[in-house]
């Protein structure tokens, strides 16, 4: 097999390449940010979720339990499907509050509580230790398998600790994490180099795993169909194709829930998903790309597991099948590639996890404690950054040491997957507090503390302690017989609950106590006003809730500036702070910082050392006057009142807008009417003047020329009389028009015989016809009864008849009146003459006021020009219409159309009559 030295050299050079990549990215911040600033890199860094558990452990589990490895990846898929509801809210809240870890998120949500942050940190560290151990174990075992005979893989670790690859991996990866996770203090805790390295690792492990999968499918077997068929022929393997029954079902559900919670709450997932996120929009693509990565890396798990069961001896360590299969096929290069892939998977997890844990330990555990216990010692330091960095580095060393010890003394006897699930179950204890904290404003600090503690204790008792007892470090009697011999307290059958596998069992009890404690205590005790304000800030983050100022805090600007300088480094941080100060128009040298500026300083600090520590620090330099409960209530009250005012104002302004629009329309209409009225008056003026002028001039002629001969005199008198009559008619019609337009005419609808009306009209105008020698034909037949106004219809008919007489040629004129029913419900009256007719282009014009066709200079006007306009208005009023068309054989054909029943649309308004 491979030479140990050569393999070690390959591993180290691979890690050095990662170093180099990370270094380059960090050195070129501009280029780096473009490379990092992509949703693909973001997704790949999220894929550090797939650790050596996925790489080696899934195959191990699949070789025994078939498809049961899958829910660990279904859970995250479901969690990311809810990306816009859940993950984006976490991202937003964290960005707004400069959150640097899950501990500071939970601490910050529950009133910036230092105690809660410390609790979460402790739980996270204890939960992560087995997981780190899992990675080291995978590296160490895979190294052992590659350099020894695979038969030995099941054997225990090398006795000589210095020859243990796990130790060296631990040392190397700790160094790597130190270099890139704690090189400097960055506001916001972005580690671009680390993200780039982790993304590359994710790519490498996917490719390596896929390579093994394809090799198995096409190198060792004749395609995957062949592989499945040969596996199906082995009775022992057919069970791998089936979903389990009963307790396996519950296990499946439990695994899905645990991984759903873990993909959000794991300190390293939180680190890459939230803390390292540079652009919220990257989440959009990651919502489907990350599940796609999970699908891709799991596609070959079952085939590789089946191949392992078919090809390897039955006592082979299931967790090394991925490696053992290429070795058994004597494919050394592929085996080495698998080792690199596995190393990538481990390294990615270890680096991110130790970075995240060290940040938590420093910001949420050590710093708040130091600030509380020894503020004087801290105060005397001019530059606190080296202290922060060394705390982080020592935290990394400590966490890795714990992980290594766990692996060496505890984790040996357990398969990778069960160690991983143990960890998942531990960090899942944060999920209720996180979820309810984000969506339920009533969740309180005390509730969260009780819930997390209770869940943690139950988890530790039902999962963690039994594994430690198994190794002999603590007495194992309680596992078999229960604590103090009380059988109800057996860790794997708590309160006598049997029939569940350990993970499902532990998840059920821990979540019962966790959620129960959280909700119960939250409901029982009212939170303090400050905590309520902070809760509202989190729950309503998308509604743009602003940080409520519950303290009147002021501070001397130089003090604040010095504080920021000490914790963030003097140049960049101070520059950012001062820019902000100047923006607010304050003088940095002397001025007092107002509450807003103090808050900004606190947020800047929170980005580096956590919210709880930042608050303690800022408190040390501010003059703080906490608002009394009354004042806070007043502020809250005022706020809600202002919101109510706002809402009403908005409604009012909308109403005003609508009213304004209506007014504008009415005004336009009025203007148009005004214009029409002006036109009308000037026309009327002209029309009245013409007869008046002629009356006046002929009267003057008669007055000035008494010697005029009687014939001329008579002629002039005639003209004066005719013009007076015309004037009278004109005035009468104008009054009619005005009446109709202003809606003053009253209509009296009666049922009448339209033929009778026509006959009466013919009789009334009979003299006119006879005078001009025009024949009048009435072809009325039996007309239907019409419901209409007798006087108005008569007026229209008279008008049409007199028009017809005027237009007909004297002597041989012929006018015919007829009734017809063309459309059901309507009666048409036709008045036809044999005059010159109406040219097509004038057929509408003649119905306008004062419009007469013909040349006004040469043709003497035959009417007032108002008759047809009045007729049309009347017809509109009666719900009918009047128009003119071509008469067959020349002449004009005027038609009236009247509704038989009183039309509902008969409009009483004068405007419509226009």
């Amino acid at each position: 097999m491979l030479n140990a030295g050569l393999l070690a050299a390959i591993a180290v050079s691979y890690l050095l390449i990662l170093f180099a990549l990370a270094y380059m990215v960090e050195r070129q911040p501009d280029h780096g940010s473009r490379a990092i600033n992509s949703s693909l890199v973001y997704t790949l860094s999220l894929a550090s979720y797939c650790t050596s558990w996925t790489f080696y452990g899934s195959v191990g589990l699949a070789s025994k339990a078939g498809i049961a490895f899958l829910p660990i990846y279904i859970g995250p898929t479901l969690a990311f499907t809810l990306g816009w509801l859940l993950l984006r809210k976490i991202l937003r809240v964290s960005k707004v509050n400069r959150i640097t870890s899950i501990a500071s998120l939970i601490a910050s949500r529950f009133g910036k509580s230092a105690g809660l942050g410390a609790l979460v940190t402790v739980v996270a560290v204890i939960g992560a230790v087995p997981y780190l151990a899992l990675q080291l174990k995978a590296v160490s075992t895979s190294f052992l398998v590659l350099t020894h005979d695979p038969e030995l893989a099941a054997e225990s670790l090398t006795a000589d600790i210095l020859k243990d690859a796990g130790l060296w991996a631990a040392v190397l990866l700790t160094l790597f994490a130190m270099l890139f996770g704690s090189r400097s203090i960055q506001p916001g805790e972005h580690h671009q180099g680390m993200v780039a390295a982790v993304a590359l690792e994710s790519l490498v492990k996917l490719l390596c795993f896929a390579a093994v999968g394809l090799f198995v499918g096409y190198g060792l077997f004749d395609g995957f169909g062949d592989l499945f068929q040969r596996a199906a022929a082995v009775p022992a393997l057919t069970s791998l194709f089936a979903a389990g029954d009963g307790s396996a079902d519950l296990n499946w559900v439990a695994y899905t829930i645990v991984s759903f919670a873990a993909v959000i709450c794991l300190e390293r997932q939180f680190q890459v998903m939230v803390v390292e996120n540079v652009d919220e929009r990257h989440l959009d693509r990651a919502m489907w790309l990350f599940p796609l990565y999970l699908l891709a890396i799991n596609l070959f798990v079952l085939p590789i597991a089946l191949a392992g069961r078919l090809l390897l001896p039955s006592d082979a360590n299931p967790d090394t099948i991925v490696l053992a299969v290429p070795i058994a096929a004597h494919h050394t290069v592929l085996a080495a590639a698998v080792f690199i892939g596995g190393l990538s998977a481990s390294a990615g997890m270890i680096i991110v996890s130790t970075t995240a844990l060290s940040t938590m330990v420093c910001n949420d555990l050590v710093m708040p404690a130091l600030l509380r216990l020894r503020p004087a010692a801290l105060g005397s330091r001019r530059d606190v950054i080296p202290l922060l960095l060394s705390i982080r580095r020592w935290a990394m060393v400590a966490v890795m040491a714990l992980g290594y010890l766990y692996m060496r003394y505890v984790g040996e006897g357990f398969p990778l997957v069960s160690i991983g699930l143990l960890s998942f179950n531990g960090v899942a204890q944060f999920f209720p507090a996180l979820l309810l904290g984000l969506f339920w404003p009533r969740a309180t600090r005390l509730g969260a503390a009780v819930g997390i503690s209770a869940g943690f204790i139950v988890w530790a008792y039902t999962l963690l302690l039994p594994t430690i007892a198994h190794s002999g470090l603590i007495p194992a009697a309680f596992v078999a017989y229960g604590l103090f011999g009380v059988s109800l307290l057996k860790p794997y059958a708590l309160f006598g609950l049997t029939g569940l596998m350990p993970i499902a069992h532990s998840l059920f009890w821990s979540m019962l106590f966790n959620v129960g404690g959280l909700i119960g205590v939250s409901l029982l005790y009212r939170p303090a006003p400050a905590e309520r304000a902070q809760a509202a800030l989190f729950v309503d983050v998308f509604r743009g809730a602003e940080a409520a100022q519950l303290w009147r805090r002021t501070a001397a600007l130089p003090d604040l500036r010095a504080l920021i300088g000490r914790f963030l480094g003097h140049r960049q941080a101070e520059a950012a702070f001062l820019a902000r100060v100047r923006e607010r128009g304050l003088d940095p040298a002397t001025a007092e910082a107002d509450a807003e500026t103090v808050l900004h300083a606190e947020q800047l600090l929170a980005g580096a050392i956590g919210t709880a520590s930042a608050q303690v620090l800022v408190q040390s330099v501010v003059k703080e006057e906490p608002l009394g409960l009354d004042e806070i209530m007043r502020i809250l009250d005022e706020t809600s009142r202002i919101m109510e005012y706002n809402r009403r104002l908005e409604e009012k302004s909308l109403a005003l807008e609508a009213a304004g629009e209506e007014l504008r329309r009415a005004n336009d209409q009025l203007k148009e009417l005004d214009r029409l009225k002006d036109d009308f008056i000037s026309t009327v003026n002209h029309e009245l003047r013409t007869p008046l002028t002629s009356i006046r001039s002929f009267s003057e002629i008669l007055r000035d020329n008494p010697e005029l001969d009687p014939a001329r005199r008579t002629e002039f008198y005639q003209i004066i009389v005719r013009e007076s009559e015309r004037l009278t008619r004109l005035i009468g019609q104008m009054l009619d028009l005005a009446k109709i337009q202003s809606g003053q005419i009253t209509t009296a609808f009666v049922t009448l015989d339209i033929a009778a009306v026509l006959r009466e009209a013919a009789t009334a105008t009979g003299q006119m016809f006879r005078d001009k020698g025009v024949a009048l034909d009435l072809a009325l037949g039996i007309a239907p009864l019409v419901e209409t106004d007798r006087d108005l219809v008569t007026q229209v008919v008279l008008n049409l008849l007199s028009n017809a007489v005027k237009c007909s040629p004297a002597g041989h004129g012929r006018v015919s009146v007829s009734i017809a029913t063309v459309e059901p419900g309507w009666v048409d009256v036709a008045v036809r003459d044999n005059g010159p007719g109406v040219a097509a282009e004038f057929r509408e014009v003649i119905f306008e006021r004062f419009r007469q066709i013909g040349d006004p200079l040469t043709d003497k006007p035959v009417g007032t020009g108002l008759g047809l306009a009045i007729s049309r208005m009347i017809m509109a009023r009666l719900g009918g219409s009047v128009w003119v068309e071509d008469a067959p054989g020349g002449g004009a054909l005027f038609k009236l159309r009247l509704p038989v029943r009183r039309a509902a649309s008969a409009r009483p308004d004068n405007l419509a009559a226009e």
Partner: protein
Amino acid sequence: MTEEARQRDKLVGLFALGVALFNPPLLLLFSGKTMFGWPLLYVYLFCAWAILIGAVALVVERRSRRKRADLSDD
């Protein structure tokens, strides 16, 4: 906003679909059977998974494309 709420509701729907697809009652339907020699449960799970991912991608990418279009309009 209403458009975004609509998209969000679609995702909630897909989540519910995922919960139904990937849990025991439906899994038992495909358990232990084979199709052309392939284990049906395995084929079903990966197909359902791929479809769910595709549906989420459709919802999410359509919205971000629209968002980009909106930005370029401004």
